[in-house]
């Protein structure tokens, strides 16, 4: 009876599987004797799969508890002891800045690190569990549709593997090392917790000198192909190369050329300045024209006609 039930179950499963995967009209003859045997096999496979699932779930729970005890109980206690020089010498030697840093600072640092690692481990745990569930479910269904035939020549396979090695090797290298070797990247945009103040290099156009009227060049159209984020980094680079003035003159020339071509509607400029500006952002950005700090780095005027 059990075998009969399993057989029916298998046929239903097979029917569902065929429906979803193949979507073709087909009659699949199944020998009833085979069905009984495969039903018994499937039952034992079910038991094994359930055990495997239970084992991995238990292992993950135990690992999580152990990590929790280690990260949030043992280590903070160890740090406090080592700070006071009461732990093992090897740990005592790790902390040598008692004169400058309170123990709370060390503990806060550890908590931050532990929080990141916990989060990462949680993601890893979810993935392990999903993989186990996926594998065991497939084993429970006891349906292994034949794997697709590898109908490719060996040299061709080598080319594909080489291509994959280059692409994924580079990507994983940067992911693990947290380095950016373009075109590979760990994609770190927006990943840092931003500071409470916003600081950046910003170009200002001097419209007239007396009285001084200057406008913030924060419209992306003013300096295209640069946008405001890229031009700030580019100016920083030019400064490191001691070519900041050359860079700002290029920006001024570009601004005027684009203005004359009608590509933007900014006013004509008599000079261009670069400031390091700092804001405390407000939701309405009402202080955008009144930064907390504004430090002039350089100013350039247009080159006289024919100076080139």
């Amino acid at each position, binding site marked *: 009876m059990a075998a009969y039930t399993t057989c029916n179950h298998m046929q239903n499963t097979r029917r569902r599987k065929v429906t979803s995967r193949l979507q073709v009209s087909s009659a699949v003859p199944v020998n009833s004797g085979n069905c009984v045997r495969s039903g018994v096999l499937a039952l034992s496979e079910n038991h094994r799969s359930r055990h495997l699932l239970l084992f991995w779930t238990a292992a993950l729970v135990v690992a999580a508890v152990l990590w929790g005890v280690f990260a949030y109980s043992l280590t903070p206690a160890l740090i406090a002891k080592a700070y006071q020089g009461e732990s093992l010498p090897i740990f005592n030697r790790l902390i040598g800045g008692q004169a400058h840093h309170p123990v709370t600072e060390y503990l806060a640092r550890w908590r931050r690190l532990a929080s990141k690692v916990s989060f990462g481990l949680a993601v890893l745990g979810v993935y392990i569990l999903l993989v186990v569930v*996926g594998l065991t479910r497939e084993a429970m269904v006891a349906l292994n549709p034949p*794997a*697709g035939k590898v109908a490719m020549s060996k040299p061709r396979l080598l080319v594909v593997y080489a291509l994959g090695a280059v692409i994924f090797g580079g990507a994983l290298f940067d992911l693990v090392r947290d380095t950016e070797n373009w075109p590979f990247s760990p994609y770190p945009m927006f990943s840092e917790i931003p500071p409470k103040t916003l600081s950046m290099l910003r170009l200002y156009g001097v419209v007239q000198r007396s009285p001084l009227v200057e406008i913030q060049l924060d419209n992306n159209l003013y300096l295209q192909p640069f946008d405001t984020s890229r031009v700030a*980094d580019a100016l920083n680079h*030019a400064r490191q190369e001691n070519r900041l003035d050359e860079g700002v003159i290029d920006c001024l020339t570009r601004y005027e050329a684009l203005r004359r071509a009608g590509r933007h509607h900014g006013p004509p400029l008599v000079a261009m300045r670069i400031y390091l500006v700092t804001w405390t952002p407000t939701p309405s950005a009402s202080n955008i024209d009144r930064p907390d700090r504004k430090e002039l780095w350089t100013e350039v005027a247009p080159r006289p006609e024919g100076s080139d």
Partner: protein
Amino acid sequence: MTSLRKHWNRFWFEAASPDNLGLCRIVLFGAMFLYYVLAPRLFPSWGYLADFVPWGSVSRAFWSPVWLISVLHLPPASTQVLGAMQIVWRMALLFGCLGLFTRVSTAISFVFGFYFFGLPASFGRIHHAEHVLIFSFLIMAFSRCGDAWSIDALIRKARTGAIQEPPALSGEYTWPVRMLWVVMALMYFAAGVSKIRHSGFEWINSDTMATFLVAHAYHISMADSLTSWGPVLARTVMIPRLLAAFGMIVELAMPLALFSRRFRCLLVPSIALMQFSIAALLGPNFYQLILCQLLWVPWDRVVAHVTRPAESLHRYPMVCDGQIGPVEALVVTEGDTYAT
């Protein structure tokens, strides 16, 4: 171990018809051709980013080549050279879409695209919208994506004269699409891992997203946001945190889309929504990436469904256990078909 190898081979090299790969080629190259030709004309406020010619006139004081551009000693070309290259590149994208001289056009798309995408990145800051295109063009250049749905295939057919058999099912038509998927999934997963590495759970459970939403009102981004909702949402406590949680979960879960159709149906639209929300609330736009999400769609099935609706509606799978007699009737109940 055998099972793992089976899974591996099934994932990468399961025999498939060339249709899906050919259609993915049309979608990828067609979408990118339209994007890079139309964006500068239709969206002047940010479309200039899709025009690479002006980089030829930028001062060398700003030149700081990114890694591979530096390794290959590629210099910034002049405006004239870039203009000519851009015309060739756009033609290559168009030819890639049509499947004309497919091998050559996809190779040119990759080589020139690599240079064009590396050029702005070498002038100060790396934007990450185009990384996926470099790898996509590279994969397509190595694939046999011109075997179907291409002018090349039509020409081949015309040359042979007689009715030609369609290309045989092969793993050749599976691995490129799967590799594109893995590239995209890995990219988002890496972005999620970066957030864990640099900020941990604090990235969600703090004012991080609220600060980003407010800061972008100070015009610090490659493009202004499509809406002014960001600072408004930042005033609430929960919404920015929910947005952050949504973004991080979707990014970290993206590899699941590789293995499960259900996850694909959930995660791919979610990631496109996330990208669009970034453009709407923060500013940086990743429209190329949003378009690349179309490569997750099984286009061969879509086309089959669209072109043969009546036929597919009346085809049912049927299973028998070898003991029943000849089929007399088919009974269709909700989702299942029984033979009587």
